[in-house]
């Protein structure tokens, strides 16, 4: 595809439920990033993948959050036992290599009720 795509665009879930957010990076991009943008804030780094491995997951807020990228392309961000404070726009970005410009997807807006 031409850009980074994310599905779903919107997700509403009840507190305590499990959600998965998907990111399809630009073809050929080896680096992939997840960011979270809460209301009134700038995007905050969550995790960075180089290939299949999570090179830096220091931004994940707690162990309810987990992300995978099993084949080095598509990535899934998984949130267990969702809380209302998890409501935010989750942005995915990819870049050709880790020190090249990241391109962002449109985000998934997660609302936890």
């Amino acid at each position, binding site marked *: 595809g031409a850009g*980074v795509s994310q599905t779903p665009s919107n997700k509403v879930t009840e507190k305590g439920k499990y959600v998965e957010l998907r990111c399809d990076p630009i073809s050929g991009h080896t680096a992939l*990033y997840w960011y979270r943008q809460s209301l009134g804030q700038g995007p905050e*780094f969550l995790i960075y993948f180089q290939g299949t491995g999570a090179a830096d997951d220091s931004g994940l807020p707690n162990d309810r959050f987990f992300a995978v990228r099993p084949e080095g392309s598509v990535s899934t961000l998984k949130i267990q036992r969702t809380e209302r404070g998890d409501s935010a726009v989750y942005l995915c970005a990819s*870049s050709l290599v880790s*020190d090249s410009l990241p*391109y962002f997807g*449109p985000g998934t807006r997660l609302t936890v009720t």
Partner: protein
Amino acid sequence: DQQVKQNSPSLSVQEGRISILNCDYTNSMFDYFLWYKKYPAEGPTFLISISSIKDKNEDGRFTVFLNKSAKHLSLHIVPSQPGDSAVYFCAAYSGSGGSNYKLTFGKGTLLTVNP
């Protein structure tokens, strides 16, 4: 602790005039700075960048100025156009510190350009 600060939540200017968006940072390890533009329901798109070895970078109507001693940068848009209306994010990272993949963003400034 906000390492990148955009103290103006919003800015309104007339079409044709100059827009100046400001950004301050506290982390001395930051050596690369970027500006992103974001429209509603879209992801941030890259606009312009500057490395710490420069004090100015220009691209068409957009110029970024960096004052390292003051830990301050600004984005100038001249002339401003209604299509420039968007949220502008300042972002930074430390290439020399090995964190060239991790951007730290400010909260953003909503620019409105009035026709």
